[in-house]
């Protein structure tokens, strides 16, 4: 029976969710095309300033996703789940690491994220 043998399947739900998201991030071609179409539509639809702001935001989001996709899956999961508000204990349970290691691994993931971001996009972090 699906999920029956798990003591607590919520880490599983989050793991599946973030894995699916990371898979989507890595399927770049379709997403890039959609982003370009969306940006073109925005430019034609709204006021110019709103369109520009939304286009810039879409670009920032694309950059964040691109860098997340280039990280090790565990690092990307840690950053995504921490940003969604999980405490260290829940992070450890979800990702499958020791609670005492979360600080170290989170610091490393953030350093790697920033390093890759700077390497791709310069100092605009």
């Amino acid at each position: 029976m699906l999920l029956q043998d798990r003591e607590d399947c919520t880490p599983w739900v989050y793991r599946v969710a973030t894995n699916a998201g990371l898979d989507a991030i890595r399927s770049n071609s379709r997403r890039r095309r959609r982003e370009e179409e969306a940006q073109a539509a925005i430019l034609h639809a709204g006021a110019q300033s709103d369109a520009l702001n939304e286009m810039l935001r879409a670009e920032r989001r694309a950059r964040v996703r691109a860098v997340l996709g280039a990280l090790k899956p565990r690092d990307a999961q840690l950053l995504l789940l921490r940003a969604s508000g999980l405490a260290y204990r829940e992070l450890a349970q979800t990702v499958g690491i020791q609670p005492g290691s979360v600080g170290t691994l989170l610091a490393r993931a953030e350093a790697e994220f920033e390093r890759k971001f700077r390497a791709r996009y310069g100092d605009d972090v």
Partner: protein
Amino acid sequence: MTECWSEGKLRAFIDRELPEEDIQRVAAHLEECSECGDLWAELAGRADRVSALMHELAEPEPVVAAPRRARRAGPMWRWVGAAAALAAGVLIGIVALHKQATQVAVAPPAPLVVQTAAGIAEPQADSGTAHNVVTLAAARPAQAGSSRRNRKPTAPGLQTNNPFLALDDDPIETGVVWRVELGPREVPAEVIVDSDGRPRAIRLVNFKPNH
């Protein structure tokens, strides 16, 4: 001078994820050790910058609307998504019943049908099933910039009504919201799953820390 602390402990200190006595000891040490102070400043600055970038992925807040009556007529394809969402809801309900018997934490007793401004999925009012319609304000872009930067979680679970964290850029047209409880503290959270069974967004809801 007191002992220096590792990078991991300093990172946990930034998030106040250490025992209270350790928080006091780290704070006292930072007063007297410039090396650790510099490392702490570097970690805190990076954490803030990365958090701000991660929150660029946040989605607008959904607005809960009152249940409405289903349309009487419409193209058949409009019902495909709704049927899939309702089927997923029933499946989740069955899973929830099994899990109640086995003490598993996911418990979505009343799945929510998610609807965007496109208005695709509406449950039938006379179906006998209690559904709430959730309308996503997807057409309106989220606040960007400094307001997002202020949403960095500085302590576990301090946020309430967190925005959904989108897992991809596809528009969310229909789907169900899984209400789940995380970990031993049973932190309530929601996962939007679309009609293909794909998780699309996650967030914590109305969570207040118990410490």
